C-alpha cells in the first residue's frame, strides 16, 4: 500500500475511534443542550474527516513507499524522552545541561570544550532570564 493510502487509512481510523468516544460523553437534558449537544459538533467534524480520508484513499496516486526513518531520529526522540524522565529526578536545569551535552555529542560535535561552553552558557541564560528575571519556578528533582 502506498504512503497516501496508509495516511488515508490512518486518519480514517483515528477519526472513527474519536467518533466512537463521543458516545461516552455525558448526556444532558434537552433544555440545556437546546438541540445541540456537546457531541454534535465533534461528530460533524469527524464525519467530514472520514469522508475526506475515503476520498483521499480512492483518489491517491500510486507512489513509491517511503524511505526508512534514519536511526538518528529514533536516537534523538529517545534523548527527548530521556530528558523528560530525568526532570523529576535531577531537576529541569541539570537535565537541560545534560541534554545539551548529550544531543550535541550524538549529532556529531566532537569539540568537548565547545559543547561544555554552550551547555553552561545556555543553562546559565535560562536560569538568569527565567528563574531570576521572570520568576519562573522550574521543577526541582530529588537530587537537586
Amino acid at each position, binding site marked *: 500500500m502506498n504512503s497516501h493510502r496508509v495516511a488515508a487509512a490512518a486518519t480514517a481510523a483515528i477519526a472513527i475511534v474519536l467518533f466512537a468516544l463521543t458516545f461516552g460523553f*455525558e448526556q444532558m437534558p434537552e433544555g440545556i443542550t437546546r438541540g445541540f449537544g456537546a457531541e454534535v459538533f*465533534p461528530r460533524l467534524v469527524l464525519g467530514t474527516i472520514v469522508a475526506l480520508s475515503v476520498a483521499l484513499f480512492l483518489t491517491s496516486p500510486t507512489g513509491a513507499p517511503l524511505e526508512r526513518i534514519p536511526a538518528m531520529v529514533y536516537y534523538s526522540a529517545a534523548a527527548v524522552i530521556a530528558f523528560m524522565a530525568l526532570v523529576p529526578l535531577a531537576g529541569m536545569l541539570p537535565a537541560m545541561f545534560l541534554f*545539551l551535552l548529550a544531543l550535541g555529542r550524538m549529532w556529531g*560535535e566532537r569539540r568537548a570544550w565547545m*559543547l561544555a561552553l554552550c551547555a553552561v552558557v545556555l543553562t546559565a541564560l535560562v536560569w538568569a532570564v*527565567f528563574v531570576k528575571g521572570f520568576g519562573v*519556578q522550574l521543577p526541582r528533582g530529588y537530587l537537586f
Partner: protein
Amino acid sequence: MEAFVAGMGLLLDPKILLVVFLGTLIGIVVGALPGISGSTTTALLLPFTITMGPVPAIAFLGPIYCAANFGGSITAILINSPGDPSASATAFDGYPMARRGEAGRALGMSAVASAFGGIFSVIVLIIAAPLLARVAYSFGPPEYFALAVFGLSMVAMTGGDSMLKNLIAGAFGVWLATVGQDLTTGVERYTFGIHSFTDGIEFIPVLIGLFALTELLEQAAQLKNRVEVARLSAVRLPSWQDVKDCSKAIFLSSGLGTFIGILPALGATTAAMIAYVETRRWSKNKEQFGKGAIEGVAGPEAANNAAVGGAMVPTLALGIPGSTTTAIILAGLIVQGVRPGPHLFTEQPLLLYAVFSSMLLANLLYLVLGLGFAKVFARISLIPAPLLWPGVFVLSVIGAYAPNQSMAEVWVAIAFGFIGFFMRRYGFSPAPLVIGLVLGRMVEETLKQSLLIFDLSWGGFLGRPIAMTLFGLTVLFLLAPWVLRKLRR
C-alpha cells in the same frame, strides 16, 4: 486620526522602539538559520510575550514576521538553502548569482525589494483593514460561520502534498479545538480525566511542538547534508540600471503578494512562488531565469514581504488568519485576552496602530540592517546543527512550561512534536492544523448561535446573502483546481 497619531507616537516610546528593534533583529537572525522559520520563531517566542501586554507583544511579534522573510533570503542566496520557506523562490536565481560572484548585488536587491513590498503592503493594511472591518461590523453569527468555513477551505492550498490532506489536517485542527469543556453544556470532551485539558488544549505547547520540536526531528534526519557557501565580499545597493530593470517585477509582485496575503490561510511562500512565475512571464529576459536573473530575486522578495501586511488584513479585521504565522500571532492575542475582529477598531485602536507603526519601522530597520550587516547574518547561518538544535529544544521546553508552569504542557508539546514529524512524513502540512485549531472555537460557537437563530434549521442560511456568497466562494475555491484539471485533459 487621533488613534493613528497616538499609534505612530508609540514609536517615540523607548520600550516599544527596543522591542521593535529586537523583533527585527531576531527575525533576520532566525530567518537566516536554515530550519528555523518565522512561524517557528513566533511560536517559540510567543510564551515570552505574555508578560509584555498586548501592545509591546504585537510590536515584537509583527517585526519578527516581517524580518524573517528577508532573513530567509540571505541563506537562500548564499547557501542555496532558504532559511525561511518563503525564500525558496529567491534561491532559484539568487544562488546562481552568488556562484558567479554577485552575492552582494543579489542581497542588496533582496533588501530593497523586500522593504518596498513590505511598506507597500502595510500601506494597504492601513487603508484596507478599517474598510473591511466596517463591512464586517454588520456580520452576525451566520456570516462569521460562513467566513470561518471559507477561511478553512483556503487551507487546502497551504502546503502539504495534496488538497485533501490539507483539508484533513485543517479538520483535525478544528476537532482539537473541541477538546475540553463544552461552553454551552459544561460537558467534558476528550479530557481523559486530565485536569489541564478541561479548559481545552493550550495553543502554545501545540504550536511549539508542531513547529520547533518537529523541526528538531527533521534536522536529525538531515544531519548528513552538507552546504556549500558562496563567497560574499560586501552587500551593495542595487544600481540605477538594476532598479530600472526590476521596477516592473517589484510593483507587480508587491500587488500580487498583498492580494495573496489577504486571502485567508495563504501566506508568503505561496505569494513568492506565484510572483516568481509571473515575474518570469512578464520579463523580457525569460531565458535568464534560473541562471541568475536579478528580477528572479526582486519579484519573490517583494511578494513574500508584501504578503505579510496582506495577511494581517483579515487577521485584524475579521479574526481569520491570513497565514500560518498570523494564526500564531492571533493565538498570541487571544492568550492576551484580545479577540481580533471589527470591534477592535473601535475598542482598541491603539493596538492596531501599534501593529501598523511597528511593521512600518521593521521594514525600514531590516533594510538598514540587511544592507549593513548581511555578512554577519550570513555567518550566523553557519552555526553547526549540533550546537543550535539542542538549544532550540531547551527554549521549546521553557516556552511550553513557563506560561502555566506545568510539565503536562511540555508533554503536550513533545507529543505534538512527534505528531508533526509523522504528519510531514506522510505529506500533511502542520499549517492547516494550526489554522483549524485557531478557528475551531469560532466555527463551533457561530454554528451553534446560527442554528439557535434559525430554530435549528440549516435552511436558515439560505436567507443570509453574505453567508451564501461566502459558501459559494468556498465551493468555488475547492472545486476550481479539480475542474481546471478536467478541462486541461
